[in-house]
């Protein structure tokens, strides 16, 4: 395992050009969550708008390392327009990837850029970084609309 394997080009690209990193104004029925990684202080604020079981928009803002920022960016891209059910399945796949547990055979297809994070599983200290945005997403889309939560 070397640095280049962990920091794939895709990760560095997302880090330098994060997607959807621009909180949309809160609208009625939107949900906002704020997640912190207490071991390092990295944080993400995420806003999601779910209508009839479909994620109409996910935007976020945050402070953190390349892995947490890139992973949140990839997550936001995948979650736009997905059904809640699909997004939860994606989150489960990403979690398996991070646990180094082997993912389903079509993982490349469904996780798209997310598969680039496979190398992070080799560094237990960084797994939490990669999961920060995903856990925020899971939290947000399983809440009642209109909640703002710390």
């Amino acid at each position: 395992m070397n640095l280049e394997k962990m920091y794939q080009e895709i990760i560095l690209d997302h880090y330098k050009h994060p997607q959807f990193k621009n909180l949309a104004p809160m609208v009625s029925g939107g949900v906002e969550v704020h997640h912190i990684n207490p071991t390092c202080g990295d944080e993400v604020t995420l806003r999601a708008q779910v209508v009839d079981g479909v994620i109409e928009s996910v935007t976020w803002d945050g402070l953190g390392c390349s892995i947490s920022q890139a992973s949140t960016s990839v997550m936001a891209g995948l979650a736009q327009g997905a059904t809640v059910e699909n997004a939860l399945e994606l989150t489960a796949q990403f979690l398996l990837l991070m646990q180094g547990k082997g993912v389903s055979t079509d993982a490349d297809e469904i996780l798209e850029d997310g598969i680039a994070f496979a190398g992070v599983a080799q560094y237990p200290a960084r797994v939490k970084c990669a999961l920060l945005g995903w856990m925020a997403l899971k939290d947000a889309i399983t809440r009642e609309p209109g909640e703002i939560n710390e």
Partner: protein
Amino acid sequence: MPASSLNAEILKQDFPLLGRTVRGGKKLVYLDSGATSQKPTQVLEAERDFYENHNAAAHRGAHQLAEEATEAFEGAREVVASFIGAQTREVIFTKSATESLNLVAYSLSAAESPIQWRPGDEVLLTEMEHHANLIPWQELSKRTGAHLRFIPVTDDGELDLTDIDTLINEKTRILSFTHASNVLGTVNPVRRLADLAHAVGAIVVLDACQSVPHEAVDVTALGIDLMAFSGHKMLGPTGVGVLWGRFEILESMPPFLTGGSMIEVVTLESATYSLPPKRFEAGVPNMAQAVGLAAAIGYLQDVGMHAIARHEEDLVTSAIAQLETMPGVTVLGPAGPRGGALSFLVDGIHPHDVGQVLDDDGIAVRVGHHCAWPLMRRFGVAATTRATFYLYNTHEDVTSLISGIRRAQEFFGTSS
């Protein structure tokens, strides 16, 4: 290279772990002694010898082994006491500095605390405290209603003493602060603050986690009342820390943990307690760890605390000088004189990523908030990268650090 009177290259050979490689054959460069130090063979052997030859429950039993275990444990107490210029009966073995500080905060707010808490009372801390010297006081404040106040930190990482005459006032009951910052390397003016606090009748507590391992510390000269430090940061084993206190203060304090070994007479309804130090050492103590700590102190004394302090100053001065010539690198904390904790920021690269690149080169540093989250906020950063030095580090280690940071800048494309 300025001469220093210890040879780190030779000392290194006493530390088996420092000989290992990491991340696929890279030579280990250990720059995280501020978190925990590595252990020399002498310490490992002392612990092993205790278990192999003298292990029994100290202070109990009439057999020879129990006597030997007691002697070994009490002998360790004498070694610690003479190391910090204290009386033997003033040294309490705890599990860690964290436990020592919790003991103090709990005892001083218990029903039989020597402090009679009144509305409006204050506990004074600083903005640069480790969580271990912050949260126990937050809890004390919930129990007593005391108001926590904080000595601010300047942009240079020093305590800002501009308003010290109002911060220390007749309502101040406790002043607790760190001797040396684990983040900024700042060394605080202990005697001056202690004298000011004593003038208003406050109790003075010192977190000496980052000073006792690195320089000669004499509790009498510091003029303080209580002091906490951890064995594992000074070449000793994990699981042993120290609380030192002036005997009169300790004698006035109720116990924290209660149970066996700390009593005089017990009935079903009540108990009376031993004098310190035993009052604060409930249960079968951490004998092997105390013996290991005594061996660590022996090792430090053989090298010489002044030589250690000079050596670290040398390394940190050289590291700062080199970091300051690097574009995009900012060193936090005072220029000097300072302790060996060196925090820095690299423009455009999060500390986690700096740490990851360094790790790939076999260099172990700490990244994150260093258990001093409020201090991070004070400097408007989420985290820093921190290198800490000890007697076994060399100038070559500093050179590795510098080239590692350069590599991180190249890797993330931020080098200009």
